[in-house]
C-alpha cells in the first residue's frame, strides 16, 4: 500500500522518492498544498475504488496516517 501511495504522491510533488517516508508530512515535508492533497484524494478514490469521507481525512498529516486510513477502507 505504501509503495502504491508513494507512486501517486510523486505525481504531485517534485521530491526524491526517498523523501516519501512513512513519517513524511504532506504539507511541511513534501510541499503539498491543500488543493494538491484534495485532488490526490480524488485520484486515490478512483485508483483504489473506494469512497473517501472528507471528515475522516481532516486529521491526516503524514504518509503513514494516509496508508493506515486506506488499509482500513480496503480491508
Amino acid at each position: 500500500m505504501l509503495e502504491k501511495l508513494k507512486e501517486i504522491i510523486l505525481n504531485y510533488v517534485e521530491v526524491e522518492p526517498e523523501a516519501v517516508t512513512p513519517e513524511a508530512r504532506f504539507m511541511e515535508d513534501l510541499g503539498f498544498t491543500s488543493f494538491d492533497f484534495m485532488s490526490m484524494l480524488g485520484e486515490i478514490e478512483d485508483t483504489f475504488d473506494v469512497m473517501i469521507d472528507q471528515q475522516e481525512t481532516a486529521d491526516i498529516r503524514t504518509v503513514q496516517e494516509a496508508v493506515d486510513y486506506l488499509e482500513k477502507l480496503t480491508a
Partner: protein
Amino acid sequence: MMKTRKGYTVYPLTAAQKFHFFYMDACENKAVVNIGTSLTIETELDFDILRECIIEAYNRSEAMRIQFAKDKDGTWYQYVIDKAEPEVPFVDFSDGTMEEAEQAMRKWTGIPMKRQDCLMSKITMIKMPDGYSGVYLLSDHMIMDAQSLICFLRDIIEIYSHRVYDAVPYPKEMASYIEQIKKDLAYEAGSRARERDEAFFRKLIEAGEPIYNGIDGTKKLELARKKSGNPNQRTAVNVSDSVESDLTIFHLEEEPTSRLMNFCHKEHFSLTCLLLLGLRTYFQKENGHDDVSINTAIARRATLKEKRCGGTRIHSFPFRTVIPKERTFMEALREIRDLQNEIFRHANYDPVAYFAYRGKYYKTQPGQTYEPMSLTYQPMTLKEQNLEKLGDIHYKTKWYPNGATTQAMYLTVMHRPEDNGLDFNFEHQVKAVSEGQLEYLYYYLCKIMFKGVENPNLPLGDIMKLI
C-alpha cells in the same frame, strides 16, 4: 462537425475555456479576454539571444501554440500547431518616461486580437526608462491563466539564463497540453467523477438560496426588490451598463504581509481562507447578513503535469458561508477551510453548468447575482531555485488592464517579487464600483484580517465593533 483543421486534430473547448468564451462572445469589446503583463529585469540583456529563447519557449509549450477555428455551425474548436514562428519585435522606451511606457503597454492590452487560425499571444522585448529590460506579453485568457503565465515567463528566463550564464541548467520539459485536455474532455463527456461532482454542487445549491451583499450595503438589493415588487428577492444586479474597466492596486508592505503569512503557515490555513474571511466579514458588517457568497477562483493545478501544461484551467464557484457573529475568528477560519477542501474535491465540475442549474433552480433573471465580487489568490512567483543562482538580480512584474470587464469587481491578490509584499489588484467596472469604495473595502479588509490574526479567539461581532 470539424475533425481537423490545417491537418491538425481539433478538440472541443474545455469547461475553463468556455467560461471565458461566453462572456467574451457577449461583450462588444473583445479585448475583455486580453491579459497584458510585463516582466523586466535589472540587468543588461542580449536581445538577439532573448529573441531566440522566446521562440524556443513557444516551441516547448503546446499551449502557446493553440489556435482556434469555427465550424460552419458556429462551434469553436482548438488545435495545436507543431511549430510557432512568432514575430518578436523590440521596443525601446528608455528615452521616454515610465508613465509613457506603461501607457503604451496599457494601450496594447486594450487591442482585441484576431481569433481564428492564429497564435493567441504576442510578445515584445522592451527596454524601460528605469534601466530594467525584459518582455511584454499579451495573451488571451482562453489559452492562459495566471499560473501558466508565470510558468511561461519563467521558462523564457530559465532558457535565457542557461544560454548566457554558467552553471544554470536547462529547464525541465513542459507537460503536454493535448494530453491534459484529453483527460479534461473525457471527464466532461461523462464519468463517475463528474456525476459525483454534479451531485455535490446540486446538493449545495438546493440547501438554500443565498443573498446578495453589496460593497456599500443593501442599496442594490433594496433597489432590486423595489423594481420587482418582491420584498423577499435575494438577488441584485451589480454590473453597470458599461464594461469600461479600471485596475486599482493597493500594496501591502513586506512586514505586514509576513505577519499574515506566518499566521497562515503556523495555523495551516491558505491565505485564500484568510482573505475570504476578511472579505465576508466586511460584507457581513456592511449588510447585516450572516449569509455571504463570494466567487472564488480555483487554479486546478495539482499534479506536476497540470502545473506545467500551460493553458487556462481556472474554475470559479461561489463560496458561500453562513457564519453568525458569535463565532470566533479562528472557528470561522476552520469552517472556511473545511468548505474550501470540499469544493476542491469537486472543482473539475463545469462552472457554467453550476450557474445554469442555480439560475434555473431559483428562477433568477439574466444579470442577477448573489455575489458582489470574485476573488483569486495567486501564490506562484517568479522566484525559482535556478534564478536564485544569478544572485541579487531584481525583477519587476506589472499587469495592465485591458479596459473592459463583464464583472463589477474582481480581486486578484499576488505576491510582489520586488519586496515580498502583496498586491491587491481590483479590476472593476468604473460605473459600478468607484475607487473610493475600493479604498474603503481594502482598508476594512486589512483591519479585519490583522485584528483577527492578533486575536483569533475574538468573536467576529467583536472584531466588527473594534475596527
